[in-house]
């Protein structure tokens, strides 16, 4: 049952697991070193008339073993930022550093879960999970994969094809695929945006459980404020495009965040504060009116 020993990245101090589980998330990060630095990240797409300024001077830090959510209006550059962290985009100026080293290409310590499961439909689940190892031409850690599959409730599903699975199950496989590489930083781009509210909540609990076991640093892009509060130590609100940090909210709630905690007054007030920050930052209020509400729950 306890997969912590298997899943935990080597950098994780074993004592911190028990501690962090009992304490407020944000507080526990105080002692942890800074893992990821986003330093005045600026990204320009195209040139001339097609020039799009997606990010401008966006900067913040993520501490080791922290869960940070990034929220913001649609098109404000969240995906651009996440892909840059994964080394899939080159910044126009500024830098992103992981443990002090500038990220200028794909990094072996970074795992990424894309929006929608992004499984390869011509491969079985097993072959999908082994895909990164195949690219890296190395053996897969069978024990770890089996353990992870059991943890997400998909033991024995290895020989199936993605189309035989529901959206939630596919997304769980995508998470297993990322975790099987033992990332020290896990990036997730609206991983549950396409799921219904119940499945989404289940997935959130799964991420919380995995984090309690592994304490992998997680950066999560989401449209759901509830999801952000349930999972994160801090919530970073980006401004409308070009994306910069509008405000950073601490989430000083103990973990695991039970339904009782999530129904409490503190959560409600925090959620409305975040919501009004996003809505207030919007230039055209009338435009869509759907920014504050998560799109998966409509």
């Amino acid at each position, binding site marked *: 049952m306890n997969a912590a020993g298997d899943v935990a990245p080597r950098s994780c101090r074993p004592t911190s697991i028990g501690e962090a589980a009992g304490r407020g998330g944000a507080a526990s990060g105080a002692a942890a070193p800074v893992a990821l630095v986003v330093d005045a990240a600026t990204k320009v797409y195209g040139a001339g008339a097609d020039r799009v300024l997606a990010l401008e001077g966006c900067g913040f830090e993520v501490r080791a073993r922290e869960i940070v959510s990034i929220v913001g209006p649609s098109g404000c550059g969240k995906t651009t930022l996440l*892909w840059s962290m994964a080394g899939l985009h080159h910044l126009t100026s500024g830098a992103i550093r992981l443990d002090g080293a500038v990220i200028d290409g*794909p990094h072996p310590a970074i795992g990424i879960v894309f929006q929608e499961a992004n499984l390869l439909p*011509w491969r079985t689940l097993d072959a999908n999970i082994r*895909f990164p190892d195949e690219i890296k031409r190395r053996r897969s850690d069978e024990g770890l994969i089996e353990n992870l599959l059991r943890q997400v409730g998909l033991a024995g599903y290895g020989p199936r094809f993605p189309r035989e699975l529901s959206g939630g199950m596919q997304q769980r496989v995508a998470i297993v695929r990322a975790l099987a590489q033992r990332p020290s930083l896990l990036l997730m781009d609206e991983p549950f945006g396409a799921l219904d509210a119940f499945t989404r909540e289940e997935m959130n609990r799964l991420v919380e459980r995995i984090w309690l076991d592994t304490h992998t640093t997680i950066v999560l892009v989401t449209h759901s404020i509830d999801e952000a509060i349930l999972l994160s130590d801090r919530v970073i609100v980006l401004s409308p495009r070009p994306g910069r940090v509008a405000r950073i909210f601490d989430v000083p709630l103990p973990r695991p965040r039970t339904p009782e905690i999530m129904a409490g007054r503190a959560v409600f007030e925090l959620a409305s504060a975040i919501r009004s920050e996003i809505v207030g930052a919007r230039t055209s209020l009338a435009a869509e009116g759907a920014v504050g509400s998560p799109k998966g729950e409509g």
Partner: protein
Amino acid sequence: MARDITPQFSRPAGRGDGQRVDLTNLSAFTQTPPIGSAGEVAVIAAVAILVVGGIECSLRWFEVPLYILPPPSAVALALVSDFHLILPHLGHTLVELLAGFAIGAGAGLLLAALVTQFPFAEKVIAPYILLLVTTPMLALVPLLILRFGFGYEPRIIAVALASGPMVMINAATGFRRVDSAKIALARAYGASTVQIFWKIRAPMALPMILVGLMIGAIFGLLTAVGAEMVGGGFGLGNRLTTYSSMIQMPQFFAVVLILSTLGILIYVIFFLLGKKYASWEA
């Protein structure tokens, strides 16, 4: 390589596996319903017997002369009695088809891969491919015969020219189905351009490649037979012209029957390949 890093903006409505290709989607022909019970088999057989028998009876009833339209029984008889005479010609046609198709399909696949990796190459090549697709290769056969004589060569060249572009445009459509998220996934784990091609682009293109190969093979067969009808003393096409000029209609239709069977065989082969290797698309 710039293509590898463009993110997807417009989200597909459902959980999509990249763009779908509608017109010649493989699923259109891998999804024939399976034949279920013995009863269904019986009905299918009965209909076939009725159709063939109906043709047979009506041709006899209206006393249609043998040299205009022979009844199925006469065709069947000719097929059996003259099969040993037709067989060598079938061999010749198959040699032309296989050789021409191998060359054409090989070149078509290679060009498709090249063109989709280097967009500039596409701009250079596209007009010629379009020309090859739209020009009936049969028109070139007399010219090819002048240059290469009455042997295999002009026919093999014609088959290659007819099948190659069909394979190429379909395969290129397949290779162009860039799903940037899947490519980003591979890149995130450090995949090289070659790995991305073999592990993402090629499998993603496979359904369209199979469609292209099937269309190319059928075009190749048509062209081989047509080229044989234009000149040269062998091949099934040559039999068609010979039998019709000698008014041996049962034999003529026996050859037609063999040609239809060849066409159906091509279809079935690629149908089965598609079922085996591209069923994830359906």
